[in-house]
């Protein structure tokens, strides 16, 4: 690959200059490919369907290392490829995919700043042509890094730990307990509304500009530090099913460089359905 790895975040200009270069693979990650990828995507971009490709069935979990290998092989991704991810819903699901790539040891991965929204807004070319993958790759998962993931039991153990900050990135209405999930999503509903006691509410969208790009490092630092989310703390981020949390994880870990940030991907759809766990409602953490 020419030019080297540019880092976790690439601009649209960078992508335009590097599109089609050997070793650079672009993947669109969609929650709803029918109204995104299949309407039009960046020429040459492959597709990851978040629901089908990154989730394990019948258990509720992300795909295991073998599943990730199968996915990478099918897409023709090699271990040394630089993968650029972008997608629908403000890059939420692309950020989730990024988090999965990092956990499975694929370090040369970047998120496209602004994602689909900005690419389309700028009038950049789109195609409906699905690229043909010439042959399956020999992809191998050589390390699994679970430092980026928190499970229910981890959160329970860290409750009221002064060195840990829980960040709830859902909307204020969800945080306060006024809604649990949109009525159209019965499988994401919770028995109870509210938030994990002690969690501060910093909605994911506070981290982005109108055009979908991330705010400046200075703005982001001010945003999180003003709520006590500082790099000396261990941070656990959650939302409802994990994708918005992955978006904020990307900001804290990859843009601000916080050393200890984890996604609790069980999130509210797990916590809000558990029997006997503490829950707080209202505006206060």
């Amino acid at each position, binding site marked *: 690959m020419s030019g080297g790895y540019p880092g976790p975040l690439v601009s649209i200009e960078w992508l335009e200059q590097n599109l089609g270069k050997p070793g650079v693979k672009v993947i669109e990650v969609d*929650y*709803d490919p*029918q*109204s*995104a990828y299949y*309407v*039009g995507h960046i020429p040459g971009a492959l597709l990851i369907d978040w629901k089908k490709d990154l989730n394990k069935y019948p258990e509720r979990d992300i795909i295991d290392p073998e599943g990730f290998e199968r996915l990478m092989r099918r897409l023709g991704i090699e271990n040394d490829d630089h993968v650029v991810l972008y997608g*629908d*819903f*403000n890059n*939420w*699901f692309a950020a989730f995919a990024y988090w999965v790539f990092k956990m499975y040891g694929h370090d040369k991965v970047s998120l496209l700043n602004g*994602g*689909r*929204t*900005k690419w*389309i*807004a700028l009038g950049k070319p*789109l195609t409906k042509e699905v690229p043909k993958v010439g042959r399956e790759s020999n992809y191998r998962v050589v390390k699994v890094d679970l430092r980026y993931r928190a499970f229910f039991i981890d959160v329970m153990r860290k409750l009221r730990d002064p060195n840990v900050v829980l960040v709830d990135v*859902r*909307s204020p209405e969800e945080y306060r307990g006024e809604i649990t*999930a*949109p009525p*159209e*999503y019965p499988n*994401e509903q919770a028995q109870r509304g509210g938030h994990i006691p002690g969690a501060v509410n910093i909605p994911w*969208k506070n981290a982005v500009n*109108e055009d*979908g790009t991330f705010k400046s490092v200075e703005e982001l630092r001010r945003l999180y530090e003003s709520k006590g989310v500082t790099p000396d703390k261990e941070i656990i981020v959650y*939302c*409802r*099913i994990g*994708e*918005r949390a992955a978006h904020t994880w990307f900001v804290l870990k990859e843009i601000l460089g916080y050393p200890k940030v984890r996604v609790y991907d069980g999130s509210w759809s797990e916590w809000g359905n558990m029997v006997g766990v503490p829950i707080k409602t209202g505006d206060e953490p």
Partner: protein
Amino acid sequence: MSEEVEVKVIDFRKVEDKCGMSKTEAFQIYVAQFARPGVVYEVIMRDADTWLAIQEIARDMGFEILDAGRREEEGVYYVRLTLAV
């Protein structure tokens, strides 16, 4: 004298804010199921991704796109459509 056409404005802001809501479902719920012939609907939204998708979805669901664009001063994208007869 030309006949006045009723225009109903549908703001997709709440849909855009919803976590992971399919745009097809959103269009079905907020536009298609209430749509009546002869009425012009103006769907407004704030992101270009949704704007592009809504045009495709609307055509697939039997709507005619009358106009689509961006109003810079309001910071919105819009799609004007009506049920194709």
